[in-house]
């Protein structure tokens, strides 16, 4: 990895974290899903470093509680799924994908609770958060729908700047 790539990774991780903090007051409406999907599509080599930096920053800022365990697999899972679908270019497809990820976020986060407290504990944790999952779905879908193209263009410039092919 070149110095330029490391610097850009740091900047993009910082941007991701700053936007997440800026939007923290809105219930489950966050730019992280959108940006991670776009980073994975346009800058696949940088994304592992960006995700690690982001997860670490979250822990340092908000504490390494049980909620932080979710981040260890939720965001890498998103990146992995996006990597599998990276050849798709339809905005509608990505809108549905990010909406579906928002819907499943609560279920994914319930896994540690189900493992530690039993299936009922996991289920009740998931059910109590369903209204927030619905908001998460709407927020993710709206952001992806509105910003997929313009941000994609910005990231393709960065990819060219780094000498990477903009899309696989």
């Amino acid at each position: 990895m070149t110095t330029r790539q490391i610097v850009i990774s740091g900047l993009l991780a910082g941007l991701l974290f700053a936007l997440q903090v800026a939007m923290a007051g809105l219930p489950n409406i966050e730019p992280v899903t959108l940006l991670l999907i776009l980073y994975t599509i346009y800058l696949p080599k940088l994304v592992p470093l960006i995700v690690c930096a982001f997860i670490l920053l979250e822990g340092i800022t908000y504490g390494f509680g049980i909620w932080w365990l979710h981040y260890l697999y939720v965001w890498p899972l998103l990146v992995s799924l996006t990597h599998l679908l990276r050849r798709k270019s339809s905005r509608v497809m990505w809108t549905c994908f990010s909406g579906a990820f928002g819907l499943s976020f609560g279920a994914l986060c319930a896994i540690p609770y189900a493992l530690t407290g039993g299936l009922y504990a996991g289920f009740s944790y998931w059910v109590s958060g369903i209204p927030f999952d619905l908001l998460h779905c709407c927020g993710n879908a709206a952001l992806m729908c509105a910003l997929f193209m313009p941000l994609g263009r910005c990231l393709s410039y960065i990819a060219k700047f780094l000498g990477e092919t903009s899309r696989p």
Partner: protein
Amino acid sequence: MKFLCGSATVMRDALSRIADSAMEVCTHENGQRCDGRILPFGGCVYFFFKLWRTDMKQMKLLAALAAAVVVLLGIWMCFRPKGIEGTKDLDIQVIYADESSKDFQISTDAEVLGKALVEAGLIEGEDGPFGLYITTVDGVTADDSLQQWWCVTKSGGRVDTGIDSTPIEDGDHFEITLKTGY
């Protein structure tokens, strides 16, 4: 089946006409389209209906997402935490930073814990997007600079709901503990 297909076609045609009208809203006087980026409302309406006019594969994706939303909504309606009407007696134990504690007995008609504690004057808090956030219990305020926060547990076990959506039953025992460190 024929009726359904016919209805879908009629609906699609109607949506197309609405989308065309919305597109006109998004057209400048000189005829150049702003493509939904300049007029936010017109743009949103245009884009929403433009989605409906995309090919069937994308329509199916949208329909699948909508179906998932409906299923989740149904699950929540069936299994969401529900309060019970009537008078309830609650035991509340407040545990302070120095690990000393004080017990309170509350009699309430409220259906959720937050309302019962606020009405009893035991807690104060701030309403946020995630519901009520407890800042003060029994006159003791959590100090943010020390990363202090109030943790609510039920008979020693974790509570999965926010305090203003936690249902209560007669004889319930809750602990409110001042924790340090997030």
